[in-house]
């Protein structure tokens, strides 16, 4: 619906989506989610922070929200901080591209979603939605170790390492290979 609206208004945007909305779109989860978290916009091949979305995109998203009774910021740049410290290497080569009229969504791959979900799960309660999503992603130990190493580039603190270790142990992963 948003893509059609953008097309009708003569706009075209390319966004990079992560989070629950992205997982839903790539078929990993089926729990309803009413938002789409963006990590970046891609303009002429360059990734830009999604913290300040272009006004026509914000306006169109709000117009759709009004009709579907969604939160006005259902499409948001909440996770854009992930971009600041760097996305996992090779992220853009792995994205799944979906085109909806004037909206192109680059969906983070399952492998990259494991990175983001692990990062979020470290701050989440043990039975929280990020843990559940991480289980649904059926991550292997190697994937979790790779994800853990990447999360350390975003938060090198010892406190974070302790919480991360706790999450990994629930998946049967010990401290080797990521600390």
């Amino acid at each position: 619906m948003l893509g059609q609206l953008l097309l009708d208004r003569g706009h075209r945007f390319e966004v990079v989506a992560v989070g629950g909305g992205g997982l839903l779109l790539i078929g990993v989860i089926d729990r309803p989610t009413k938002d789409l978290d963006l990590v970046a916009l891609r303009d002429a091949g360059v990734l830009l922070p999604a913290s300040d979305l272009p006004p026509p995109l914000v306006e169109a998203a709000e117009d759709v929200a009004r009709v579907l009774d969604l939160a006005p910021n259902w499409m948001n740049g909440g996770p854009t901080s992930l971009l600041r410290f760097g996305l996992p290497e090779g992220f853009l080569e792995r994205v799944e591209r979906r085109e909806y009229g004037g909206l192109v969504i680059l969906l983070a791959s399952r492998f990259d979603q494991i990175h983001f979900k692990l990062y979020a799960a470290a701050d989440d309660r043990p039975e929280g939605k990020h843990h559940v999503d991480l289980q649904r992603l059926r991550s292997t130990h190697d994937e979790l170790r790779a994800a853990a190493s990447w999360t350390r580039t975003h938060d090198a603190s010892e406190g974070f390492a302790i919480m991360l270790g706790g999450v990994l142990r629930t998946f049967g992963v010990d401290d080797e290979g990521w600390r």
Partner: protein
Amino acid sequence: MSEELQKQVVELAWRHWTALGVAGVAPLPEHAIDLEALIAFMPFVAAADPRLARECVDWCVRIAPSFVSISRLRQIVRLMPSRGEDGLDLPKLLLEGPKDPSVRAKVSGKSRMPRLEHPALIQLRSRYIFGVGARADVISVLATRSRGAEAARISSLRSVGYTKPAVATVMGELAAAGVLEKLVTSPAISYKLIKGTSLRALLAPLPRQAPSWPERFVLIANVLETWRRFGLRASYPIELAKVLDKLRPLAATIEERPPIVGRPSVIVDQVTRWAAALLAPKGRAGLR
């Protein structure tokens, strides 16, 4: 969707204009007519019925000057959505005069003076008694309020197109003349009609309903204009919802709420039914 709504709008317009004296055959309305609201609404109707448009020009050129409040028309036109330059612009014809002086010679000449004894024409009747302006319209509003209506505050009686000070002046003078009783209950001032029977007898026959047409026509004009601009697009329901969302405060003044939430496939039908209901007011509402 809006072809059906447009058809109903054209039917209603014919009924109103026929009551006003335009040459046509249509059942006369049982509700009160609002002249300036009707004229301001016509640009959104005219293209759908060129014959009606032509006859309205005839009426406006030859008969309107006796009845129309130009200043009120100007205020109500400002509430209407903007349009392109295409088509007949009846308000402009009245506000600026005809661009082509030969218009006067080209009109059909079929319109006649309205038969003021018809209940629907209470506004015109009142203007013939009290003169064209806020006083006549406030009095017709007072006369058409239900008999058990509570004392009215100026804000609740304000007839669209008149300023609050203008209405306040009229109310104050009617109170001084003993037609109304002024009730001061801090912080509000309200007015109670104390010569209602006489006033109603003077303005009789009263219409069955007296809906507030300016708001209704503004809402429907926006629906029609949005349809004209975006009706062929797949995203039309979203554009329609956006337009109507901005009009929620206006709709609330007549206790209406546009139905703009739902699946896009049903929104258009919801809005069509809602807009059609605006054209067929029920109950005895005051002119506001």
